[in-house]
């Protein structure tokens, strides 16, 4: 039988495909490339920080390393990873559709993403950029003599891919659901992607405009952010974080969607409080637009503005807490298996809990003043983006890999990989909380000697983490040829994606499914 992988052959059949599943695999290859590019920069950062002086590389080189690590990871891995790979592949299948609403636009998104990626890679290989991924003005617009405009234009271009993907998801979820697939029968993965798409469509234009303003000041000397030219440097921070804080939710909401699927599938029961989890996603997306000022508590904004942003930041923590409690409650009286995807889900819940709770420290005005711009921040957002997004992404990739490729990966190696990554991650980033409260500032090529022991622990953890990543990379590729044949439903999971062959045909289903049950209807299985 023809499936989507062998329906047609040749490079052209991939580069001109309109099949959402093939486009998802194009994205998989692209974001994996950027992940390893960003990871290589992280290795350089941690190597330099193994000793207090800036001895391995010059400070200007170090500054480029952490900048390019952040740019590659945030804009070209974390933001697209789950939506463009897993979302792209799964949303049509989960709602019983043959494709996304706009298949050609979907392919165009990938080309736009690659064009943006090439711009930024070009900036990296021709000398790099040293502004930090946050591009704060007036350093970025008037002082740095690195390739700021090229790198920023890459981010500008890639933003359109994000907008178009979000648009495509919104229209698809509204218009393409199979008969009987009502809103409250949608898998929570789809709900979380709907919320994510809203942020992508509403937030991304703001960063696009902001980048153009920086480029205009840099290239044409317009006085926008540089006070020497009559501009306002803090204005940039408002504009930047108006997008970039919601962008954190672009990164983490899809991972929450994945975890909802994993917890249900490997407990074999419905997610506890389905509607609360679904609406928590929307609440996070909406409130998330109103908290950007918490990045600026020490940047001279008024104390009253700081108080408003602080209280709103606390409010956005509540729906996140609700989700954690609901996932945990889902385990109660479940039929829990310890397959690799579930290990990642456990890891996600634990690490996201720490990331979320340390986020409360940063929303607390009196503590934020001391810990902002220190390693406490670095630790916190890695617990969210890594402990959250990447654990979710890897969990999802393992869960749906048999569906995407038709092959199983080797379970023992996968468990070893998950454990290695979990231990390496905690050893890398937990000491950074301590470093932060001690007062070690971030973005330092050299640091006082009293911080060395904790930094060595962190660098040692990063070595374990780096090795941990290579394990799935190797066995996933190995499994494409040698993995056991998975069959349509290796996990005994419910959900439309498990009712079609692995890998599915190009049109996903033999005939359009008719949905008669809520999501995660494991309790109805026995009676049937």
């Amino acid at each position, binding site marked *: 039988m023809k499936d989507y992988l062998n329906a047609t052959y040749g490079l052209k059949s991939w580069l001109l495909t309109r099949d959402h599943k093939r486009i998802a695999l194009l994205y998989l290859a692209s974001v994996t490339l950027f992940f390893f590019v960003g990871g290589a920069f992280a290795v350089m950062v941690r190597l330099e920080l193994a000793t207090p002086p800036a001895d391995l590389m010059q*400070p200007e080189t170090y*500054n480029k390393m952490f900048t390019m690590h952040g740019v590659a990871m945030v804009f070209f891995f974390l933001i697209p990873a789950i939506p463009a790979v897993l979302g792209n592949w799964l949303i049509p299948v989960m709602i019983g559709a043959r494709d996304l609403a706009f298949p050609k636009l979907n392919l165009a998104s990938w080309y736009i993403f690659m064009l943006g990626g090439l711009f930024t890679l070009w900036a990296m290989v021709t000398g790099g950029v040293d502004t*930090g991924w946050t591009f*704060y003005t*007036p*350093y970025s617009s*008037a*002082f740095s003599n690195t390739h700021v405009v090229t790198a920023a234009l890459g981010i500008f271009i890639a933003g359109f891919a994000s907008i178009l993907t979000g648009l495509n998801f919104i229209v698809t979820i509204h218009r393409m659901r199979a008969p009987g697939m009502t809103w409250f029968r949608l898998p929570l993965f789809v709900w979380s992607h709907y919320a994510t798409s809203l942020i992508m469509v509403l937030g991304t234009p703001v960063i696009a405009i902001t980048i153009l303003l920086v480029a205009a000041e840099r290239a044409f000397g317009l006085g926008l952010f*540089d*006070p*020497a030219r009559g501009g306002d*440097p803090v204005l940039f921070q408002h504009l930047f974080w108006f997008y970039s804080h919601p962008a954190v939710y672009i990164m983490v909401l899809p991972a929450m969607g994945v975890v909802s699927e994993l917890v249900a599938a490997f407990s*074999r*029961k419905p997610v506890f409080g389905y509607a*609360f989890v679904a609406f928590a996603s929307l609440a996070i997306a909406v409130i998330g637009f109103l908290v950007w000022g918490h990045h600026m*508590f*020490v*940047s*001279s904004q008024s*104390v009253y503005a*700081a108080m408003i942003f602080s*209280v709103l930041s*606390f409010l956005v*923590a*509540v729906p996140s807490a609700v989700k954690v409690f609901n996932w945990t*409650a889902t*385990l*109660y*009286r*479940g*039929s*829990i*298996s*310890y397959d690799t995807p579930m290990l990642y889900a456990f890891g996600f*819940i634990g690490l996201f*809990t720490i990331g979320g*709770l340390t986020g*409360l*420290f940063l*929303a*607390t005005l*009196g*503590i934020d003043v*001391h810990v*902002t*711009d*220190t390693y406490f921040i670095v630790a916190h957002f890695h617990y969210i983006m890594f402990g959250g997004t990447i654990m979710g992404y890897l969990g999802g990739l393992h869960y749906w890999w048999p569906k995407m490729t038709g092959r199983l990966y080797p379970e023992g190696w996968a468990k070893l990989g998950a454990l290695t990554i979990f231990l390496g991650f905690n050893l890398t980033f937990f000491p950074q909380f*301590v470093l932060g409260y*001690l*007062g070690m*500032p971030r*973005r*330092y*090529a050299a*640091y006082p000697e009293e911080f060395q*022991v*904790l930094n060595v622990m962190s660098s040692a953890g990063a070595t374990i983490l780096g090795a941990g990543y290579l394990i799935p990379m190797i066995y996933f590729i190995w499994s494409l040829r040698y993995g056991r044949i998975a069959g349509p439903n290796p996990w005994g999971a419910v959900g439309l994606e498990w009712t079609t062959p692995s890998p599915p045909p190009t049109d996903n289903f033999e005939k359009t499914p008719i949905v008669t049950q809520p999501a995660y209807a*494991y*309790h109805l299985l*026995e009676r049937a």
Partner: protein
Amino acid sequence: MLSELPLFPVGASTIAPQVDALYLFMVGLALFFSVLIAGLIVYFAIRYRRRAPDEIGVAATGGLILETAWSVIPLVIVLFIFVWGAAVFFAMARPPADTLTIYVVGKQWMWKFQHAAGQQEINELHVPVGRPVKILMTSQDVIHDLFVPAFRVKADVLPGRYTTLWFEATRTGQYRLFCAEYCGTKHSGMTGWVYVMEPHEYQAWLAGGVTGSLASSGEKLFQDLACNTCHLPDTQGRGPMLHNLFGSTVLLATGEKVVADESYLRESILTPRARLTAGFEPLMPTFQGLVSEEDVLQLVEYIKTLKK
């Protein structure tokens, strides 16, 4: 080994114990919830492990009470933390009335501190113990951030405006000072030391090797730049009289009123037409680019001393 592995920073300011108390409360809270969640996950994962390949979980229903509980309880907790955190923040943001003011200009990649008595120092800051100190800060180029971990305070140092930071040191000693906002190549070299001294030692230090006070340097500049040709010590000048100006309320040509603080004085020197005093013609030229931020600070300090 343990001496090489510090886990908690020294506290040497009046605000430090307040921040630490809040921090330790939060650590306790975070530990409680992390252990709760992790403990439940481990317990459930073992207690409800799959015992047969085709086993199905038991669907739970009717969670409204639970959902309400775990929405409302976190809400109450976070609002409590918010109020506590805001109270500490207010204490940090509001310096007491009688502070010792020290000026700092940040520039790539150094800190230049100026004391009113005339002492200037680079990457070092001498302050007396037990006296509130206000640092009035500006940057000559990009954004910097003055951070003294032992005092638990930091604030951005912005080009084009003044920001302030205050602390009252409680222990004499030597404490690290960092730039905490990434500012370019030698960001990690923009560090130094704060020396907290006994008041009499501080006075002795202030007296050592000084040519003239900050205000006297400002006075000289005031004459060199010919400010004194228009700003006379009476109301007959073409510009407003500057005596008793600092801290007073100024009526602007637009009808608005502003308090003549350091930021207003700085703006009126660099861009005089931005907020013109009522009753005066916009005759004064801009001094943007003609005077450095250190010059402006000297002028400001001089104007602050003009009293009748």
